[in-house]
């Protein structure tokens, strides 16, 4: 069942506060410009993108072998490897590890996969207390909101909002908006969490088949703090996170942070290869629809995504509608091609939430043809019956008129006559164009009418 607002409805609500929309747009545009500077400083940038895309092509064509190689090497390193077919199985596995250790608390670092699987809700229903340790994640968690961006989870919030949230949940001084003060409060709160949790969960940015190790990238070091202090480290990954060899990591690490935030590299790029003595390390490898997407030829490239968020920062629609309007763990252009794969009925609106401007495709560090896939999803969704009936009727009518020159000519004449003489039929509140825009002024004659009178004459004049 559909229980969320359509993207256009949520976007219209978000747009009621013009100042906030402007601020959201400018903040993300600032990140996009930082990305441009960082990317344009590297002469071989476009070559790097191509290389990353090719490595991922290889991975997607040989994913079976690489995953088995990774599993075997990780096991040799002493890591317990689990396989999950879907979100539910993933959540059950994580819970079973907690149960085995009799632990009721978890510290978690950023993982969009666990958002996709709704792990927090699942564990909380089982009576387990989960604390997100990424600062942005912690802020939205306290507010009981999902992240609105995959790299900048609380980018939709201003420091005043954070101050209010911290005042309510962490007891900070009301109205104190000083970022230094607020960060300090978060730091003290999280330090206590790190020191007391026995189980830490992290995401995985890259899993290296050759060595059986994983790499986690953070700017706050929170993944390391959690994993280093806990007895049990659980790392959860979608199966597409695999790369063949360590040497390939250099390509992706150079692209990831530059694309995400305009930094040369993330502050921490931590390798986890085996559990410390006497401790445990688990890796949960998740499918959850990825096999289906791999099998859809037009959409398999979406599995190349390294979750940098560059497509969101550059997307003119995302910047003005906010991440929550996409009602999916991964928002923005990339989310709009991943979401229908998970649930076509619930996410049929998302591939239409784009002007197909193509900027997303251009910034993508692994060269995913994002806007072309949005176009292709539209075709699939309409064919599968996920289009509103009114739209289908209108489109059929339009196709008939536009395929027939005489009908088109007549419809044009009638249309222009109506607009000129009975403008209220067009200029009314039922016309979404007219709500905030004037209609074009209808001319006396169409070009074809002008051409009939002047075309040949002009030709003759010029040919004299």
């Amino acid at each position, binding site marked *: 069942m559909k229980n969320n607002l359509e*993207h*256009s409805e949520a*976007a*219209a609500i978000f*747009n009621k506060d013009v100042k906030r*929309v402007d601020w959201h*747009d400018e903040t993300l545009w600032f990140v996009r410009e930082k990305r*441009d500077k960082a*990317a*344009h400083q*590297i*002469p071989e940038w476009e070559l790097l993108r191509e290389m990353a895309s090719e490595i991922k092509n290889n991975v997607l064509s040989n994913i079976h072998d690489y995953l088995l190689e990774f599993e075997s090497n990780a096991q040799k390193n002493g890591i317990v490897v689990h396989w999950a077919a879907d979100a539910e199985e993933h959540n059950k596995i994580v819970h079973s590890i907690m149960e085995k250790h009799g632990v009721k608390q978890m510290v978690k670092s950023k993982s969009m996969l666990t958002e996709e699987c709704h792990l927090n809700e699942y564990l909380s229903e089982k009576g387990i207390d989960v604390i997100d340790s990424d600062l942005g994640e912690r802020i939205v968690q306290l507010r009981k909101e999902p992240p609105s961006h995959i790299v900048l989870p609380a980018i939709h919030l201003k420091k005043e909002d954070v101050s209010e949230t911290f005042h309510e949940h962490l007891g900070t001084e009301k109205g104190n908006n000083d970022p230094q003060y607020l960060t300090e409060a978060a730091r003290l709160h999280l330090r206590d969490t790190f020191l007391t949790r026995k189980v830490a969960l992290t995401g995985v940015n890259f899993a290296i088949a050759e060595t059986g190790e994983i790499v986690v990238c953070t700017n706050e070091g929170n993944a390391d703090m959690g994993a280093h202090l806990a007895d049990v480290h659980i790392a959860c990954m979608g199966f597409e996170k695999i790369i063949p060899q360590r040497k390939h990591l250099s390509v992706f690490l150079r692209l990831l942070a530059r694309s995400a935030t305009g930094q040369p590299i993330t502050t921490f790029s931590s390798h986890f290869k085996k559990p410390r003595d006497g401790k445990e390390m688990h890796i949960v490898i998740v499918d959850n629809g990825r096999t289906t997407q791999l099998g859809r030829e037009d959409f398999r490239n979406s599995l190349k995504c390294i979750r940098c968020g560059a497509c969101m920062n*550059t997307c*003119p*629609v995302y910047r*003005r*509608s906010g991440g929550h309007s996409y009602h999916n763990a991964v928002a923005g252009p990339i989310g709009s091609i991943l979401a229908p794969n998970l649930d076509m009925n619930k996410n049929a609106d998302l591939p*239409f*939430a784009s*002007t*197909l*401007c*193509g*900027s997303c*495709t*251009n910034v993508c560090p692994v060269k995913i043809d994002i806007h072309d896939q949005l176009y292709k999803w*539209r*075709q699939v*969704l309409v*064919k599968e019956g996920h*289009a509103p009936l009114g739209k289908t009727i209108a489109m*059929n009518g*339009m*196709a008939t*008129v*536009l*395929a*027939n*020159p005489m009908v*088109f000519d007549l419809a*044009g004449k009638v*249309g222009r006559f109506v607009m000129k003489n009975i403008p209220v039929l067009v200029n009314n509140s039922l016309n*979404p*164009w007219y*709500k*905030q*825009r*004037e209609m*074009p002024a*209808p*001319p006396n004659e*169409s*070009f*074809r009418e*002008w*051409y*009939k009178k002047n*075309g040949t004459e*002009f030709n003759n004049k*010029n040919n004299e």
Partner: protein
Amino acid sequence: MRIGLFIPCYVDQFYPKVAIATYELLQKLGCDVRFPMKQTCCGQPMANSGYAHLTKGCDANFMANFAEFDYIVCPSGSCVLHVKEHLHDENNEELASKMRKRVFELTEFITDVLKVETIVGNFPYKVGMHQSCHGQRGLKLSQMSELNAPFFSKPEQLLSKIKGINLVSLSRKDECCGFGGTFCVTEEAISVKMGQDRIKDHEAHQVDYITGGDMSCLMHLEGILKRQKSPIQIIHIAEILNATV
């Protein structure tokens, strides 16, 4: 060299002056140009809305009208891109393939095929150039700000030859205006906001005119400008180039 003039359906009906300027301009540049009277629409409004399967009639009509021409020229990047990417004919795919390669956007035809190097003329105004996304990123009429590659711009190359023109450099060079075909009504709020923001960039540079290669983007911007009672006017690039050749 016979040129078929391909005029977008909404330009034919609402902006005949843009079509006239294109027609006259091509003639002044020495082309034998004809307008096939039975043309209608390329089918893009249906295709981009997910109804590509309904465009066969438009495709057939387009093929029938333009098959005989050496080049098909159109004052719209968006319609050209659609034909280049999606024109098909089950019964004569070879011809469809040829026609996909023969279709050109106006400024790219002037710079790349006619290789026009000098344009004499005068347009003494401050002008902001709105790069339409399909023209720029789709047809690569100019370099895109996202890519790490040298700058070029076919429309600006032509405009820069015009005497008196003061072409401003926008803060967000290639931001989308928010028109997006049926997006402009299905996502009305965002579409309008994007258009308003696009206009603000031009306003900040105090332009007299906003020009561009796609009348659809300009129609959307014009609708907002008029509602705001702005003195800024819109003008298609063909009109500037034609007034001054």
